[in-house]
């Protein structure tokens, strides 16, 4: 099953749900499938672990990375580069926007209302049920409503990103899949895909999932670990 996405994709969710890792891997997967991809770092609220840290790896794959000007990259200032607005108006094949966490992080989207008015943007909620505040369906609903109000956009889909980073087991993925399937039904929004690290994906029985799996090649790692090398070819699911 392929993941079909085009136009403007806005990736939102609660803090630490894995929006950036999902955005990066989604961009890489679509690029490798021959789609022209742009990715914009719209995280104005988080000081560390943002898309900008994977800039080199993404540029190497000829993915366009839209960032604030260089001298402001490490500033804790909410800098919105005009290039983002241009990207929304002219998304090309696929433009992915990696937005900051919660309603606070999504507030910036309402400032882009003018750009969004001409585009049918797909806003997608990333959910990791092993995170505080999104471990219940009510918690996920409330984050979704908070983001919809702050962004003035409607949620169009869900990505399940169940993981405990290095301590993720197949059970984590199965349990997470059941949770996001229920969430998807409860709010009547499609489950676009779930994710699984390439380290454990081969241990999964993929027949259990009725949606595609986005393999995660982890890029946002602490300094004592190495990000996975992003080669030109997609990870093949067996």
């Amino acid at each position: 099953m392929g993941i079909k996405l085009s136009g403007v994709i806005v990736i939102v969710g609660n803090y630490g749900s894995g929006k950036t890792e999902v955005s990066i891997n989604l961009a890489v997967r679509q690029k490798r499938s021959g789609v022209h991809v742009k990715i914009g770092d719209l995280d104005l609220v988080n000081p560390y672990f943002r898309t900008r840290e994977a800039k080199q790896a993404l540029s190497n794959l000829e993915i366009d990375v839209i960032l604030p000007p260089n001298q402001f990259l490490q500033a804790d200032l909410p800098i919105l580069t005009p290039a983002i607005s241009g990207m929304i108006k002219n998304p090309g094949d696929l433009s992915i926007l990696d937005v900051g966490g919660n309603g606070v992080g999504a507030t910036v989207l309402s400032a882009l209302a003018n750009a969004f008015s001409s585009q049918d943007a797909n806003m997608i909620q990333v959910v990791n049920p092993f995170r505080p505040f999104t471990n219940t369906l009510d918690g996920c609903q409330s984050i979704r409503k908070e983001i919809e109000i702050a962004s003035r956009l409607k949620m169009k889909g869900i990505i399940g990103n169940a993981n405990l980073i290095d301590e993720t087991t197949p059970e984590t993925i199965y349990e997470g899949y059941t949770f996001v399937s229920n969430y998807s039904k409860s709010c009547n929004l499609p489950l676009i895909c779930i994710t699984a690290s390439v380290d454990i994906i081969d241990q999964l029985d993929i027949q259990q999932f009725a949606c595609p799996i986005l393999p995660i090649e982890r890029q946002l790692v602490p300094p004592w670990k190495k990000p996975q090398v992003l080669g030109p070819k997609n990870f093949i699911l067996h």
Partner: protein
Amino acid sequence: MAKVLMKGNEAIGEAAIRAGCLNYFGYPITPQSEIAEYLSRRMPEVNGMFLQAESEVAASYMIFGASAAGERVFTTSSSPGISLMSEAISYCAAAQCPAVFVNIMRGGPGLGGILPSQGDYFQATKGGGHGDYHLLVMAPNSVQEAVEMVMKAFPLAEKYRNPVIILGDGLIGQMMEPVEFPDHLVSTPSDKSSWATSGMATRKSTQRNLVRSLFLVGNSLEDNNRCLKAKYDQMKKEEIQCADYNIDTDYEALIVSYGTMSRVCRTAIDILKKEGIEVGMIRPQTLFPYPDAIVQKAAWKPSCRVVTSMELSMGQMVEDVERVVQGRRPVTWFGIAGGIVPAPEEIVDEMKRVLHAHQS
């Protein structure tokens, strides 16, 4: 209990609640603002107090006041904010008020930057504020350890009636790891009726309690300072915590490192081992009291030719390492203080350089 995936800052906030602390006064500053944000949401759920003060100075005196009234209380900040709080920290120490402070360090001096640093080692261990006092200083190197140290900090602060500080760096606050909150670290607040200004009626007492840091009469100031010193001496006997790595080998060099930097060093030691070079590491978990005897014993091991203090600072802990090694081994320092955490390979290169410069 099932693990959850938490950012260090969130986990620190939750750990305080689990430890039975229901009072938080604070002021936001990167890279630790998520603690306040998390608690602004969680404290109302547990009938606790969350208050955003008008400044760090105000928050720190709210800590002093709440502690004097017998409440478990804590605050969190990052380097420049801790500088502003240092006056009240000195007052808390003088008045023997237990409280927990968390410093998620960023680069300094001045406003510095928002990236990780260990530049507040001196501030935390050697004073910070004025006068003859010490904080009990704990330095976690993982989100799980930050949780456990926060939970332990409250009973320790009460045991010594002294402020405790958790010294993390920006990465400890910002990184995500799976955590659990151990039930055995939940503690009951101690009985403070003999000294806290909790109200005579509440205490059913006719005796007034007075909390003060001003001592004008006779020998009272000297007596207070003697009393504080006795507590710090007791901490040195009872509270030292330390971890080690690759220490059972005949290591040629010893690294002393704490917090985030020790995680990088651990990977570097693994790389060196594969190349046939044995390097050991001592990781102080308490920075005051400092593990003098443990570092000294490890440094004086016959196979060890050189001792290196690895820090995210321009050379602060190295002074403690030099003090305890007493000149019996060469002591070197390697550090980075611009907000960048070095890669393990940089530590590997430095250890090779140091070993080459100090051949047997």
